[in-house]
């Protein structure tokens, strides 16, 4: 069972959380109009086999979004922190 350390609630089963995808990317500015930029942001992922930064939301807990470091080759979870400021507001 993957166990995630929530910065607010402590270590919990991953089933309390909802996965939110790759957290290493920057959302384009809302006024960016070119298709390629948005296509890359919405659809294209590095999908690494190894260290990965990802969003999770503690939906059955504090409901905060967090950024978790996890190794996708082993599922070994690492540090986590609150996500505020990581995604654009």
């Amino acid at each position, binding site marked *: 069972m993957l166990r995630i350390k929530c910065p607010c609630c402590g270590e919990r*089963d991953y089933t309390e959380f909802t*996965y939110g995808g790759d957290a290493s990317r920057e959302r384009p500015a809302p006024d960016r109009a070119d*298709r*390629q930029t948005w296509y890359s942001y919405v659809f294209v992922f590095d*999908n*690494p086999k190894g260290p990965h930064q990802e969003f999770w939301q503690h939906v059955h807990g504090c409901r905060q979004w967090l950024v978790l470091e996890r190794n996708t*080759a082993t*599922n070994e979870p690492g540090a986590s922190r609150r996500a505020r400021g990581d995604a654009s507001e």
Partner: protein
Amino acid sequence: MQHASRYSALSLARHAFGAARWPRAWRSSEPKASYDVVIIGGGGHGLATAYYLAANHGIKRVAVLERSYIGSGNVGRNTTIVRSNYLIDGNTQFFEYSLKLWEGLSHALNFNVMLSQRGQIVLAHGPSQLDVLARKGNIMRLNGIDAELLDRGAVMKLLPYLDYSADVRFPIWGGLLQRRAGTARHDAVAWGYARAADDFGVDIIENCEVTGFLMENGQVLGVDTSRGRISAGRTALSVAGHSSQVAAMAGLKLPIESHLLQAFVSEPIKPFVNHVISYGAELFYISQSDKGGLVFGGHIDGFNSYTQRGQFPVAQIVAECAVALIPSISRLRLVRHWAGIQDMTPDGSPFICRTPVRNLYLNGGWCYQGFKATPAAGWCFAHTIAHDEEHPLSRCFALDRFEQGAELDDHGSGNWTYKQ
């Protein structure tokens, strides 16, 4: 095929009663310095592609490079279901073509893939769900595909062991039956294609991992492998599960995430589940293998991973589905359980196409549906490689379809459903 030792009743008798040992089904090949086509990935799709390159296009200087051994990947990890009950244009015709190839596959390969057209029933648990299945059935029939809409009574007759009690949470309202759907023996598919491709002179090179591409002026000229450098006229990716990893070595980023799908086998019991059944209230499907084990599976785990080990909560949900649908199996024990890594695409449909990198071709992004697609994927991918142009049946599986707004969203549920 022209194999020196063609399988037949006579050859079976000869090997059963004689001293002659069965020959290897395919040679153990050393990599040569160059090939017309190098296929990366010795799964069902890679081997099928090699076979159809030789059989349909006369391209026989072909190597299939497999990082591990033949049958070690997803071709041996699926739940062996074949069917062609799709909803939207593109998918419908492609998967029906695949099912037609399945129907002639044992003869074409001279290898019994044990296709068992036992019929697949998708269940509906309410009138609106049955309406959706009726629409799907009509679309199938308009495309010449067999489909029968079943009411509750008809389902009770075919599947008397499901839970029809009055207080059941998801009552069975009806279903859609495709009689030509069923299962095939997945290992035999890999071995059959490998043997038939080998017979044409294709080199199948196991334990050979690709470590990089030879690139010049933005085109691929070959691959570096753990067993040396191999130059190639054309290079084909058939590594679903790891498509992102291998494509990245050629500087290509793909709209793919790798996820785990689990499968389960129970202890063997006498013949009981005589069809393939898909539950309509959750993603759950079940059939019975020839050895007697119930084979079933459910949803992906829900976050990207390459571990090939599933998370326990999914096993629990799948077991709950099994018991909700067929209460009498509640005391069966699971004897095996595993996970496969699969390419998940935004719309749940695959890629069989050229790529922005010259001489590099992609077959991947198969999500849940790679096994049933094996023959048609090989057929269309071989065509794409041989002609440097997509096959008419797989034009819809282009890499740029998200940019163009031409998604193939068969579930009608939007992009990256598991992230919503």
